[in-house]
């Protein structure tokens, strides 16, 4: 039976550690890449479509935010130093991104409602 439940409370595991994230902050791209559909014509209206894949977009992306806690900041340092060697698992959709690198340099907001936004890119999600 089809499940129509919105996934709004995903489980995130980074390097085998469960991460507490800010609700509604998680997003991902599977890395299957962008495509263009280009027409080609043999004349007289005989047109076919050609699919062109942009391999520059064949990379996974995972974004999430965490609260500005001592633990989160320590984890952020670890992950940032671990270029190309982080593994991110999205439990709710059963997808994994290997060889992940944190591509942004997160701003740490030391305020009462401060968050740390992190963005990773890596291999296509599998």
């Amino acid at each position, binding site marked *: 039976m089809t499940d129509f439940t919105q996934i709004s409370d995903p489980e995130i595991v980074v390097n*085998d*550690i*469960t991460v507490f994230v800010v609700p509604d902050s998680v997003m991902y791209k599977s890395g299957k890449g962008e495509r263009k559909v280009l027409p080609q014509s043999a004349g007289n209206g005989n047109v076919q479509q050609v699919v062109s894949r942009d391999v520059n977009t064949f990379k996974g992306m995972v974004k999430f935010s965490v609260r500005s806690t001592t633990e989160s900041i320590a984890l952020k340092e670890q992950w940032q130093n671990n270029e190309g*060697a982080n*593994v991110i698992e999205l439990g709710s959709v059963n997808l*994994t991104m*290997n*060889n992940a690198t944190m591509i942004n340099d997160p701003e740490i907001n030391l305020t009462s409602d401060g968050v740390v936004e992190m963005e990773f890119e*890596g*291999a296509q999600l599998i």
Partner: protein
Amino acid sequence: MKTEFTFTLTSPVTYKPDNSGEQSETSTLTLKAPTNKQRTQRNKLKQYVLQSMFERQEKIQDSESLKNLQDEVDTDKLKKAEDMTDEEIERQGEILVMSLYGSKMVDSNVLIEEFLVLLQQVCFLEKDKNITKPVFEKMTPDDTDRLLGAYLVNFIRLS
């Protein structure tokens, strides 16, 4: 006296190795003996084992079965884990785990939670890499029960 043993899972688990950016699979876990740092969890498991045995003792009527059960808690008569074969450890572990699950005094969910807290300190996927809750959750329940049985036989039963 044994200070560690190796356990083989029937279903491998995936984890992130320390020196790699990709997930890997393993079937081999290394388990170390508890220290005082794990005293709370070790004592809780030991309590559960003894409670289940005493409960069984109360229910047994014939002297033969009662003697067999008393031999199970008589530490002078029990074989040490280092003198047992893997099959004997597995069989003994099965009996202990079945007793625990069959005991009214043991909450099986609390049992596994305490075991998980212990495992995160004494169970290694590779050198210096402890098992974590997300990796533990990938194990099958049968492997978890076998692992619990093996740990009880090796380090809790006679301690």
